[in-house]
């Protein structure tokens, strides 16, 4: 029988859980991860990574259909969807194998099964593990980190059937490309699937309940994105309530209400992207002091729950629903357990968010409206892609880099970008914010020419009325 007693047991092997376990091991703690399905979690297997693979295919499709702009011509452009999906699955599998290797290298024990809190034993926390409903073992540790993640939210009347009406999970492995698609919800997940399908030749309609798409982003960015998608030929409707969603006709029929009027949308397929709910069920929270609010575990700044020795991280513990947030929480949680000195709680404001639709969207910090609402007297800088040489050379002249500064101190409060490759640029501002630079250092920094990053410089300059190239 293998070891059953650990310093730290992590329930869930996603980007929160496996990172926490590796960090624990680095700090000399004996760690185990209990994972019921795939190491790497949703992110790696059914989320972040496989969608990026799909979106790379749709980007290629987009380029192929616009070859003329680059001096090429081609006939009979077609794709094999099975191969596109296969590529995505292969990448996910490769990375999941990579996680297994990393855990092994770091001497983390991996337990295959479903973990559940089961009281205490000899002053230690006990976790029971089952596989396919049958018990496979009990493990104990002083500290248990819950990292069970989340799943797609479904709403009454908006239930998926897994074929015509689906969530991200089925949408990741389509067998055929529908001629028409309705995406309900315009957050990151919704817009990425919308963009993928659109660029693969499907007629896409996106509906959003609030008055703008990508509601978590800066309002100006939302408006810019809306315009871009509309220009591409996507149908976008905001301020929409779904009255009815049923199967029938070509596939599914949605009855929606816009501005008091009723409309019917008929499509082959529907993707539901209306948020997520935490996986709080069947993990042994009953009878503990772990508090659950709106399907998520309540934690303090050190990821502690109300139950001593039980912690929660990642999607399970609340927004923002981001893999990098989960990983970071895992690291802080474990370092706290190990007694590492000089720790700081995670500053939510400095977590960047990226959406990989075309055009890409990336942001960090406060939006203009939120900065104002927080009482800041602000300066705002903007720089358009059309003013940047590299962007034009790439054939990507639609986009914008926006920065928000505190007028008084010069603190960079937020940065908001839309356009090609901005997801790779945003971390420049992320580092700047973490190092607490002001506009002065950002102005002093030398940005290489010709790069898209020059727009980051120009946006800062513009906030102070000094932009050179626009």
């Amino acid at each position, binding site marked *: 029988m293998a070891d059953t007693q650990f310093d730290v047991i992590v329930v869930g092997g996603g980007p929160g859980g496996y990172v926490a376990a590796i960090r624990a091991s680095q700090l000399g703690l004996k760690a185990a991860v209990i994972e019921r399905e795939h190491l790497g979690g949703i992110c790696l297997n059914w989320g972040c990574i496989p969608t990026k693979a799909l979106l790379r295919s749709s980007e290629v499709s987009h380029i192929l259909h616009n070859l003329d702009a680059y001096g090429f011509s081609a006939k009979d452009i077609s794709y094999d969807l099975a191969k596109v999906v296969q590529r995505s699955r292969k990448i996910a599998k490769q990375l999941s194998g990579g996680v297994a290797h990393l855990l092994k290298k770091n001497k983390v024990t991996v337990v295959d099964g479903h973990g559940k809190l089961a009281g205490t034993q000899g002053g230690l926390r006990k976790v029971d593990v089952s596989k396919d409903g049958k018990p496979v073992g009990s493990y104990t540790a002083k500290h248990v980190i819950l990292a069970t993640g989340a799943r797609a939210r479904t709403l009454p009347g908006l239930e998926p059937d897994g074929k015509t009406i689906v969530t991200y999970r089925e949408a990741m492995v389509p067998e055929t490309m529908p001629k028409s698609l309705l995406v309900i919800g315009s957050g990151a997940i919704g817009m990425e699937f919308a963009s993928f399908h659109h660029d693969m030749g499907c007629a896409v309609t996106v509906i959003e309940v609030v008055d703008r798409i990508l509601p978590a982003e800066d309002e100006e960015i939302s408006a810019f994105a809306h315009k871009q998608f509309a220009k591409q030929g996507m149908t976008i409707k905001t301020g929409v309530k779904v009255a009815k969603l049923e199967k029938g006709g070509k596939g599914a029929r949605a009855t929606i209400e816009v501005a008091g009027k009723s409309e019917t949308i008929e499509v082959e397929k529907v993707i539901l992207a209306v948020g997520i709910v935490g996986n709080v069920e069947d993990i042994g929270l009953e009878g503990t002091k772990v508090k659950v609010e709106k399907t998520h575990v309540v934690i303090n700044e050190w990821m502690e729950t109300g139950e001593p020795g039980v912690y929660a991280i990642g999607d399970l513990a609340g927004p923002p629903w981001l893999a990098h947030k989960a990983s970071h929480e895992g690291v802080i949680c474990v370092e706290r357990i190990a007694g590492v000195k*000089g720790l*700081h709680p995670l500053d939510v404001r400095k977590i960047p968010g990226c959406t990989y639709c075309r055009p890409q969207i990336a942001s960090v910090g406060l939006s203009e409206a939120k900065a104002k609402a927080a009482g800041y007297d602000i300066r705002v800088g903007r720089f358009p892609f059309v003013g940047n040489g590299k962007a034009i050379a790439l054939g990507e002249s639609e986009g914008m880099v926006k920065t928000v500064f505190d007028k*008084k*101190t*010069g*603190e960079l409060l937020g940065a908001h970008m839309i356009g090609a490759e901005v997801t790779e640029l945003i971390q420049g501002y992320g580092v700047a914010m973490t*190092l*607490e*630079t*002001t506009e*002065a*250092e950002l102005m002093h920094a030398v940005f290489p020419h010709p790069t898209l990053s020059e727009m980051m410089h120009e946006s800062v300059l513009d906030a102070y009325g000094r932009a050179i190239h626009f």
Partner: protein
Amino acid sequence: MFASPLAKRMAEQAGLDLGSLKGSGPNGRVVKADIEAAVSGGARKPAAAPAAAAPVAAPTPTLGAAPSADVPGMPAYEEFPNSNMRKVIAKRLTESKQFAPHFYLTIDCEIDELLKVRKELNAKGDDYKLSVNDLVIRATALALKRVPAANASWTEKAIRVYKQVDISVAVAIDEGLITPVIRDAGSKGLKQISAEMKDLATRARERKLKPEEFQGGTFSISNLGMFGIKDFAAVINPPQGAILAVGAGEQRAVVKDGALAIATVMSCTLSVDHRVVDGAIGAEFLAAFKKLVEDPLTMLL
């Protein structure tokens, strides 16, 4: 200085000495949170009035903008780094002298009667002991009520005449000085003023005053009588419009009805911000003050 650029700028704006702060960032780096903690937690506990009322729109003077002390031929020295309080005093008083055009009015008050009344009052109870300064505070407050134009501040748009007399009293402490405030001194009796002053001064020396207890104030009193100073001129505590400098009561030869006589005389000098208060108003205030001090029974009313 190992501090983030933002922390450096915020410290400069708040008049904080970065060197005196403990950094909570990686390897002791001073970060924004440390400045915020210092500003709200009272590391900046100066003889200060709230900045909100500060009338100055011009650039703030830099600390220690004095000519460099690094001139050849100076003897060996030891350096005592400026505390935050020192820096705030330097900043505010430099500001005061640069922007508030001071002028000075001196008046002599005979205080034999006041000393007699004080002695009699102190003999009547065990639970209080009035000081000359307590009586001066009371007289000042009453005089300001009679001449409210002297209880005022300059702002760019208007002169603010306060509807209440809040008297800041300078208290010397180890690191500098601080000015706890007797709120609404005009409507408080001697016994209450005395008790409050004693409590504020004690806690000021222990550095236990809350910000609201030393911020604000509409008029200041600085009394160096106990050190034997005959007469001096104080620097106005901005954004206030005036400060009364109180000297020692001492026996002097005075002329009364054409004959030499001996009286206990206390010289008081009012420093006035001429933007706010003109000479005549200053004189009117001092006359009212003198009348109360020399006829102390009237201040018991």
